[in-house]
């Protein structure tokens, strides 16, 4: 059973060809684009959701920060759709791979920080020391703030990976337990099945929340630095 549990997280290859590229590109099929004023239901729904998200998330930024709108909206759509598609049976979720989440987190964080250092150098350096610290504590606090700055991209990536992977693993385990219990004691199997349903509802929520959190944090780092 140990080997079976983790086989769903292996990068899918077929005869040596990277199938994973196709799987990463698949969510883009579900978001058609259109030039019309009034569209079909699918596109209208997506446009409404996109407007809601962009207004809620980008209204706090200055003009300079709002140039990142396209990037952040694509990010939240990508992570949200990839996580939700991973809840379908037998599918592969690219966001369970740490490599991909690091590839998303590090450039975005670095972009925000470097923008801050280039344009508002004094203010960015001032972030390293919170206001009103007693003088003897200053050296130690600067070190702590530096560490907390450099841990931000790692935390972004690992948070997303761990949440999605843990959710998928729990679903596998509890589903397997339900199946194994049906022959032994149907009542316990029923209870486990109800737990499975609750867990799936949680996973749907987690899928969308993780996307939101990722994007929100990147936008927060951006707000600090523009």
């Amino acid at each position, binding site marked *: 059973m140990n080997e*079976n549990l983790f*086989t*769903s997280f292996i990068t*899918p290859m*077929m005869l040596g060809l990277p*199938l994973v590229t196709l799987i990463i590109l*698949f969510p883009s*099929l*579900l978001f*058609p684009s259109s030039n019309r004023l009034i569209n*079909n*239901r*699918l596109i209208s729904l997506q446009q409404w959701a996109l407007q809601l998200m962009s207004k809620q998330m980008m209204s706090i930024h200055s003009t300079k920060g709002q140039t990142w709108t396209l990037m952040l909206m694509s990010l939240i759509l990508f992570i949200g759709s990839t996580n939700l*598609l991973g809840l*379908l*049976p*037998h*599918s*592969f979720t690219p966001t369970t791979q740490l490599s991909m989440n690091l590839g998303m987190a590090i450039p975005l964080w670095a972009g925000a920080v470097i923008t801050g250092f280039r344009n508002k150098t004094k203010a960015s350096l001032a972030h390293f020391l919170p206001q009103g610290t007693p003088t003897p504590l200053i050296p130690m606090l600067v070190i702590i703030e530096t560490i907390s700055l450099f841990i931000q991209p790692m935390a972004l990536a690992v948070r997303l990976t761990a949440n999605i992977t843990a959710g998928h693993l729990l679903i596998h385990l509890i589903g397997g337990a339900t199946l194994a219990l049906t022959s032994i004691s149907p009542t316990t199997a029923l209870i486990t099945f109800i737990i499975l349903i609750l867990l799936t509802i949680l996973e749907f929520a987690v899928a969308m929340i993780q996307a939101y959190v990722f994007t929100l944090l990147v936008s927060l780092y951006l707000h600090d630095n523009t």
Partner: protein
Amino acid sequence: LASLMNLMEKKLLEVKLGELPSWILMRDFTPSGIAGAFQRGYYRYYNKYVNVKKGSIAGLSMVLAAYVFLNYCRSYKELKHERLRKYH
């Protein structure tokens, strides 16, 4: 030749069985030809099920069902060990 020109204009269901090999060989297998085939297929599905005035959930669900099925085919090799058998 008249028979070649007739062959080029027929769709798959109109080709007679004897003409099938020459019809297959006549198709455009260059990268741009294959890309064109995928594009035509995509727009055929999109305009029939999604790009309509009152599209329903079926347009999206059929795509997701096909996605689930393809992933099942991809992981069949590992899944066949998990069948309910007395001896594996």
